[in-house]
């Protein structure tokens, strides 16, 4: 019996040993290695679903909604759960060849086996519902609602607003740390690019529990760990959408640009660059021919002419010359210069338009009649470096600090420029044309508009801007964009009076008299700039109104449009009327189709 009792004890000991071995194994799995296995089970069963925030929308200065978002359906593939034998079924439902589904599946594998890749964009709702009917047969196939930009008014302002499109692999590489993922939209130009961070908001994350077949079974921990998305800021723009739409329509058949500013703030009321493009094109992959036109056509539709094209300003330069000369003491407001229809320098004669002789005239009359001889004389009395310094003070020859990054500085030469470009020497004959806005100088339409606004407001260069403020749609938080301080021109206010007077005379009895705005006093200046390649001149016009209390300043450029008064002037005039009165009066309605019929001289293929 002694032996029997020992056997009972040994047996109990065996039971305890066996269960202790299992217990120790549990210590190893559940205590020592718990975190590793937690990670494993998490990557198994918890799927991160990103919740995209609503991209900020655009309002114009009158609270008109210009750009918002609409939902589109994107079908996603999660390769790990997708059953390859169902490629045919999915392809049939989507109405694409099997090879497309296979290719999308490969792409999805490249990115992640366990995460849903957005594979088919803008799937129509009826197709989506048919896919959902087959949901049980299509594990790893899900959908998400992707927002798409919707453009609500006729004001397209393609270059100002820019566009959004799917992030490219190269950009993704750089911006993954900012939370971008394949298939995300990203602003590519204009405001969409400049305010990308603010517009985009912050994506949220929802954790979903999926089963072994990859089907979502419920929110993980009832959403306790979810991160809600933060919507982007809405942009409150300075744009006047009606003005913008009118200006764009006036530019049909033309190449060129128009910029309208509020001279009291620098707010951009309209920004036109034509030809333009439809920003909607970029929401899907672009057909080859369209892409070729957009990128390779000599018309350069993607090029923002308003801030990037450089043209000689032509006679729109004369108000600047007058201000410089008055301030420098080269002339005073009563100085009389006699115009004999041209200025003789050595053996060369620099002519007035059509050799027209204006006789003895003062600075007001010289602006009114756009007399070249007067300003040739002024230029001859001015050192080129003095001229250059003043031009730069007026904002030419340098980039404008503003919320459009796509800019060119233009060209304002000085003596060192001439030394470099003409190493065999140069004379006054090389620089005299600068006095009438020709020669080795170019300015952008934006610079012209800003200068016109400064003339109108008595010498303050405001920073042009498209965004008045950013408003958060939920919190109502308002953020003002940081703008550089306005620059004040060191010019006597009285001299501005003189020049504005001259520009008023242009509209009342000068080169702009045919585009005078009924009932509104305005100040303008025509410009005709020689085009390269022997083509038709560029047509320019600057305009501000009303003269007593300027509320709008416009610069219009029509490439190869001829004399300034014929094409640019009516566009500028109609824009100002539209803005100040909210409409175009009945007696000038005929002018709109008339202007629309005018064309830029076509470019050779």
């Amino acid at each position, binding site marked *: 019996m002694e*032996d*029997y009792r020992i*056997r*009972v004890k*040994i*047996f*109990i000991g*065996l*039971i*305890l040993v*066996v*269960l202790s*071995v*299992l*217990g120790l*194994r*549990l*210590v190893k*799995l*559940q*205590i020592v*290695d*718990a975190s*590793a*296995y*937690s990670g*494993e*089970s*998490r990557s*198994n*069963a*918890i799927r991160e679903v990103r919740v995209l925030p609503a991209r900020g929308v655009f309002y114009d200065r009158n609270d008109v909604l210009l750009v918002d978002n609409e939902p589109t359906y994107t079908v996603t593939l999660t390769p790990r759960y997708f059953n390859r034998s169902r490629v045919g079924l999915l392809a049939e439902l989507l109405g694409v060849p099997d090879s497309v589904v296979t290719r999308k599946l490969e792409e999805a594998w490249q990115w992640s086996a366990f995460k849903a890749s957005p594979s088919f964009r803008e799937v129509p709702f009826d197709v989506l519902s048919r896919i959902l009917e087959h949901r049980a047969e299509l594990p790893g196939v899900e959908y998400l609602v992707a927002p798409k930009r919707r453009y609500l008014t006729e004001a397209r302002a393609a270059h100002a607003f820019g566009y959004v499109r799917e992030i490219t692999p190269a950009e993704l590489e750089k911006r993954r740390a900012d939370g971008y993922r394949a298939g995300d939209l990203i602003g590519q130009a204009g405001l969409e690019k400049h305010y990308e961070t603010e517009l985009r908001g912050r994506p949220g994350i929802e954790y979903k*529990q*999926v*089963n*072994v*077949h990859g*089907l979502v*079974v*419920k929110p*993980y*921990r009832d959403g306790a760990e979810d991160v809600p998305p933060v919507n982007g800021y809405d942009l409150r723009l300075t744009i006047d959408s009606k003005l913008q739409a009118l200006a764009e329509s006036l530019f049909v058949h033309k190449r060129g640009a128009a910029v309208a500013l509020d001279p009291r703030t620098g707010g951009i009321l309209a920004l036109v660059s034509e030809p333009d493009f439809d920003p909607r094109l970029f929401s899907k992959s672009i057909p080859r021919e369209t892409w070729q036109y957009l990128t390779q056509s000599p018309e350069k539709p993607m090029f923002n002419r308003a801030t990037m094209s450089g043209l000689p300003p032509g006679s729109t330069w004369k108000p600047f010359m007058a201000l410089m000369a008055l301030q420098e003491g080269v002339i005073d407001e009563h100085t009389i210069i006699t115009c004999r229809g041209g200025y003789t320098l050595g053996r060369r004669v620099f002519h007035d338009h059509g050799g027209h002789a204006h006789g003895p005239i003062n600075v007001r009359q010289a602006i009114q009649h756009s007399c070249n001889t007067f300003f040739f004389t002024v230029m001859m009395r001015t050192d080129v470096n003095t001229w250059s310094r003043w031009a730069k003070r007026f904002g030419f020859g340098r980039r404008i600090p503003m919320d459009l990054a796509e800019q060119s500085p233009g060209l304002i030469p000085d003596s060192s420029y001439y030394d470099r470009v003409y190493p065999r020497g140069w004379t006054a004959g090389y620089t005299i044309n600068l006095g009438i806005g020709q020669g080795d100088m170019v300015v952008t339409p934006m610079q012209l508009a800003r200068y016109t606004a400064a003339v109108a407001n008595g010498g303050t260069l405001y920073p042009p801007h498209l965004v008045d403020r950013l408003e958060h749609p939920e919190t109502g938080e308002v953020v003002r964009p940081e703008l550089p301080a306005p620059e004040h021109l060191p010019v006597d206010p009285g001299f501005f009076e003189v020049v504005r007077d001259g520009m008023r005379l242009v509209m009342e009895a000068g080169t702009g008299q045919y585009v005078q705005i009924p009932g509104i006093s305005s100040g303008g200046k025509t410009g005709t700039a020689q085009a390269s390649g022997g083509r038709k001149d560029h047509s320019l016009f600057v305009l501000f109104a009303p003269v007593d209390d300027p509320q709008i300043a416009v610069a219009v450029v029509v490439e190869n449009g001829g004399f300034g008064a014929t094409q640019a002037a009516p566009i500028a005039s109609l824009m100002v009327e539209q803005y100040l009165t909210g409409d175009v009066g009945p007696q000038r309605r005929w002018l709109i189709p008339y202007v629309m019929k005018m064309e830029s001289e076509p470019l050779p293929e």
Partner: protein
Amino acid sequence: MRTWYRNLDYVALFLWMALVAVGLTAIYSTTHGPASEFLLESVQKNFERQMVWAGISLFGIVVALLLPVPFYQKAAYPIYALTMLLLVAALVAGREVNGAKSWLYLGPIGLQVSELAKVGTVLAVAQLLSSRRTQTHNVRYAVFAVALVALPAALIVLQNDMGTALVFFGLMPILLYWSGLPLHTLVLMTSPALAAYLAIVYWPAAVAFAVLFTLGMHWQMRERYVTALAGLFTGGTVAAVTLALTKVLQPYQVARILSFTNPEAKEFRDNVGFHLVQSKAAIGSGGLLGKGFMEGTQTQGAYVPEQSTDFIFSVIGEEWGFIGAMVVLTLFALFLIRLVVLGAQIKHPFGVMVASGAVGIYLIHIFINVGMATGLLPVIGIPLPFLSYGGSALLANTAMFAIALTLHMRRDDFSIYGY
């Protein structure tokens, strides 16, 4: 007058109920979670069915308690014969489930007859080894006992249910142990199993074990033939396993055997290692406190195959954590020890053999099942007693427990001629 049930051991009965309740809770979680709609229809009603089986089992305990001691002694061989017939019948007319032909259908009710065979075998061996015999016949009886176990084991091997057959092989040394076989013989008999396990997991350890075991036996026994046998058993096993793994078996078979040591390896994790990867992830991610009832992501996502049957332990490990898993192991420890103590109190060899045979079967199941779920052993498809879903197993395991409980309650009724 003292009531007939005055000797009933309520502690053991309570522990049985607790284990069954834990099992039902875990099964409920696998079939009634938020994701239950995605489960196979055949699985969705597992909880309800197991409730019915638990009720039948409880009723069975009551019936068993009402039956007298001599009934069990007299019925031992007929029951054994009946279960052997059922095994043959299953082999002939059974239905194949998961590759094993071990199911016999009586109308809509399926019976896994290999489970029932355990009851018959334990009773028959107990009857054999408790019959009067002289000391000189010990060896002959031991051989008979082994034959009684080997017959169902062989039939079950023919059914292709290796896991269950393994339980029978494991049962042999335990029954022989209680029949009084010398300890060193038992140690010698079981040494090849340990040697084989080590040879699969880490061969240097197997070689070291073989050398140390042989030297130990030599030092303890000082008998040349024992030393020779020890060396032959352990060394031979190590050599045989190594040879089998490198030369004899096909690569896919080797992969299947070896995969449990490293199921996470890229070549295993989606096929032969999938069960173990998922089960270990479930248990390991449960951590100390578990994810909570019906909150296990692995369980609710049905990642572990067979989670309501063979892998029920992964559900407990994930949802109730280390604490919960240890509670289950502790319940098992208390239950098994209680049964051993009850058997010892019976003082009649039939009772001792029934109780310890049942405990042996439970212990082998628990070790293999939990060892498999935690990745300590390869995937061997046998259920966790009282917890896994499965009517036949619950009924058979409860039957053995009920008989032991009855024999203990009625221990005064044993014929004094019994021993």
